[in-house]
């Protein structure tokens, strides 16, 4: 093998955890200057492998070769020394520090113990210009966007002299525009001679970005191949191990009566800003209304307002004609609204409760789960057993903590619980975030089924594919207002993107086409 063109080579890496072989005799090769995607479902062993390369785990078997030399990486310090940098999915930045301070943190240019700010700022500016990573070194992290924060993370690794960059699910937190910018950045880096490993489970990104791809399933390498010789469907099959359908079967359906009616809803945010600024829309029985928009334009607040988790200061919410404005979450839930929350760890589940306990989270007070203030554990377990079977929630049983379930199964449990309440309106916010293909397929199927049964569904998502394949109508949200609707049957990313960016002329275009 030609050592001079190989940046990293992993040979026969095996890593075991109690009851699990996370990496099973893995061989992986990263060539210099290439973008190599590491593709696999959640839990396939991608992160373990990269943590081994970054020195956070030690493999039980196998060898690591970096730039043609066999090495033992016994810590992140060693990895950095070898020129390996990692951009984590969850950024490790000090919020009140400036961009420059964060970048030089741990390796500050200093004289007699004093930080030389001007020098730090200058170095950061040089780096950002060289790689086309636009940042302002003097801004504070808490004041800049997520996409900008990611660039800071990248600069951090470059500042430490990294030649081999590992990106862990870099697009998970980014908007459409930011993803495009990131793609540009990665291409620049590769052109500058950096070698890049991209951990992802998104097929589209692999195809758009990577030169070659290694597919991992259940701790084993399935195939390594150049992206030019494959396509999304083929990769999905390799990744999941079976044929996957992307298209959701969805028949045309005439929507029924108005279920949810939101009228000029207004809400003030913590800083006194009007985060909801007069929002009006209806959702009818048997239809899915998708809400598109860049994260942070009031989608979360809209859902909080409808579900009663936060109060509004104007407008009304009606369910089946009944006013439920500013009611408590329990009253809203009893009125017939189910809610699959955006963040399943924050809102959806009590992670340290058992699966069984989580199944009655919104209905524990119901007499069917016990009388006289006591909980009827048998009734609770019976429900949990039923839902686990029906929705195929896999884990170590209903008495295991919710924390122990995989993300997909956690989401299945929430969907099971929320559909079991047989709501008139189902609110689903980012229902497939962080899920792998198999789970996404399942969630989509369930949502469409619910629609077909005549439920009204309000779907908030940042994934355009998801919005287009599920929604009957798509409304675009921008700065607390609805910009307008787009045709769900005729996809136009350009126009949608402009609306999401608040461009009013794009709205006129849709109106005209109608």
């Amino acid at each position, binding site marked *: 093998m030609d050592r001079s063109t190989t940046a990293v080579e992993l040979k026969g890496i095996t890593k075991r955890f109690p009851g699990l072989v996370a990496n099973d005799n893995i061989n992986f090769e990263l060539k210099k200057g290439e973008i190599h995607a590491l593709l696999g479902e959640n839990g396939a062993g991608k992160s373990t492998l990269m943590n081994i390369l970054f020195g956070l785990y030690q493999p039980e078997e196998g060898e690591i070769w970096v730039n043609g030399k066999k090495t033992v990486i016994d810590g992140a310090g060693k990895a950095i020394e070898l020129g390996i940098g990692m951009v984590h999915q969850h950024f490790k930045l000090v919020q009140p520090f400036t961009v420059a301070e964060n970048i030089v943190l741990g390796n500050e240019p200093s004289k007699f113990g004093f930080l030389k700010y001007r020098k730090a700022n200058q170095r950061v500016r040089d780096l950002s210009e060289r790689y086309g990573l636009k940042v302002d070194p003097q801004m504070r992290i808490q004041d800049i966007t997520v996409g900008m924060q990611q660039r800071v993370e990248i600069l951090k690794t470059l500042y430490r002299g990294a030649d081999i960059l590992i990106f862990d699910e870099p697009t998970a937190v980014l908007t459409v525009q930011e993803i495009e910018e990131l793609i540009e950045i990665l291409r620049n880096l590769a052109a500058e001679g950096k070698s890049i490993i991209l951990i992802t489970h998104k097929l589209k990104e692999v195809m758009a970005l990577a030169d070659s791809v290694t597919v991992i399933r259940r701790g084993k390498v399935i195939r390594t191949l150049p992206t030019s010789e494959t396509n999304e469907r083929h990769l999905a099959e390799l990744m999941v191990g079976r044929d996957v359908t992307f298209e959701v079967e969805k028949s045309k359906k005439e929507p029924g009566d108005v279920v949810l009616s939101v009228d000029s809803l207004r809400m003030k945010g913590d800083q006194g800003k009007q985060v909801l600024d007069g929002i009006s829309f209806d959702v009818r029985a048997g239809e899915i209304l998708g809400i598109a928009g860049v994260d942070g334009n009031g989608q979360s607040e809209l859902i909080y307002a409808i*579900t009663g*988790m936060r109060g509004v200061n104007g407008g009304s919410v009606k369910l089946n004609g009944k006013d439920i404005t500013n009611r*408590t*979450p*329990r*009253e*809203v*839930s009893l009125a017939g609204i189910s*809610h699959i*929350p955006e963040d399943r760890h*924050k*809102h*959806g*589940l*009590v*992670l*340290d*409760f*058992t699966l*069984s*306990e989580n199944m009655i*989270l*919104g209905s*524990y*007070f119901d007499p069917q*789960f*016990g009388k006289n*203030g*006591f*909980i009827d554990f048998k009734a609770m377990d019976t429900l949990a057993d039923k839902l686990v079977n029906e929705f195929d929630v896999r884990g170590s049983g209903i*008495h295991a903590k919710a924390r122990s379930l995989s993300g997909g199964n956690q989401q299945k449990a929430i969907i099971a619980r929320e559909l079991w309440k047989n709501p008139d309106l189902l609110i689903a916010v980012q229902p497939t975030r962080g899920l792998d293909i198999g789970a996404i397929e399942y969630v989509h199927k369930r949502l469409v089924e619910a629609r077909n049964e005549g439920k009204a569904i309000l779907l908030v998502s940042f994934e355009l594919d998801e919005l287009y394949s599920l929604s009957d109508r798509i409304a675009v949200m921008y700065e607390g207002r609805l910009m307008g609707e787009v045709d769900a049957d005729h996809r136009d990313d350009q126009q949608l993107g402009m609306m999401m960016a608040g461009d009013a002329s794009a709205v006129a275009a849709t109106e005209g086409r109608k």
Partner: protein
Amino acid sequence: MNTMRKIFDKSSFLVPLVAIILGLICGALAMLAGGYDPWMAYTALVKKLFGSPYDIGEAIRAITPLIFTGIAVAFAFRTGLFNIGADGQFLMGMTGATIVGVTLDLPWYIHAPLAIIVGGLFGGLWAALAGYLKAARGVNEVISSIMLNWIALFLSNYIVGTYLVMEGQQKSKPVHESALVSIKWLSESMGNARMHWGTLIALIGVVVFYVILWRTKKGYELRAVGLNPNAALYAGMNVNRTIITSMFISGVFAGLGGVFEILGVFGYQTVMAASWGYGFDGIAVALLGGNTPIGVFLGAVLFGGLSYGSAGMSFGANVPPEIVRIVIGSIIFFVASHGLVKFFLKPFMARRSNKGKSEGGSAL
């Protein structure tokens, strides 16, 4: 039953046990360094605890208030609150019981229960005040409850010193006989140790602690709020009301601890220069017991037993009581630093599993 399993898993016992042993070793080292005989000292400690019926009785007397404050702190902890104000609630419980015990004169079957209930309510409402401040104004309960400790101390002193005081003394008039909860026959058979019904109530309190949290809907709510207030809000629970409820129940437990010191042990309340610190010891007890019902009970027994037995070490081996504080301090230190104990355990665990492996290998 699953909840039972969750509460009593193996490592939750092993770590405190090893921590206790390490603490005892540390104490022994301290004694050796000071020129005392640790073996003799520990023997004397045990002898002091179990040597005579009087000592057994008095040790139980010393343990009882710790059970109350221990479950008070643990209860709040389970619901995501740090009730550092158990001390103040304890004092308010004492004061409530003293007020009823001194000023009213009722038949015993009304008087004693009334004094207990009023004392419990005093403690509960005092804690609920901190809960209310958190719920309504977002004031951190650690800060408000620790400040309420001082207010409770001076308020109690004021009430006792102004309205209930015995002429020319720094203490209240004696509580009426009808409100006392001493167990005369038991005291007499135990060398006049101060035995009282509060101990039994404390044990019932441990059971109530378990039943409320793990058997009732209210407890389900309390735990949900404790583990994830956001999810609780999403599930339609009234998080603020739950915080107040939790503090109230916690305060009732602490208050009852104070009640029985008055009605069962002293029969009067003094104007105190400083609190007795049972509330703060309760934090250590809750920590020792991992906030579980049985754990808190055992923690209180250990803590109270060691404190009471320390006099025995002074007597039997001339060890100053400070050394006993070192032992107690070390045990808490080791329990609190799980990581350290696990570090000490690791070689043993590893050796065991290695041994298992190699033995398995040689057998083949």
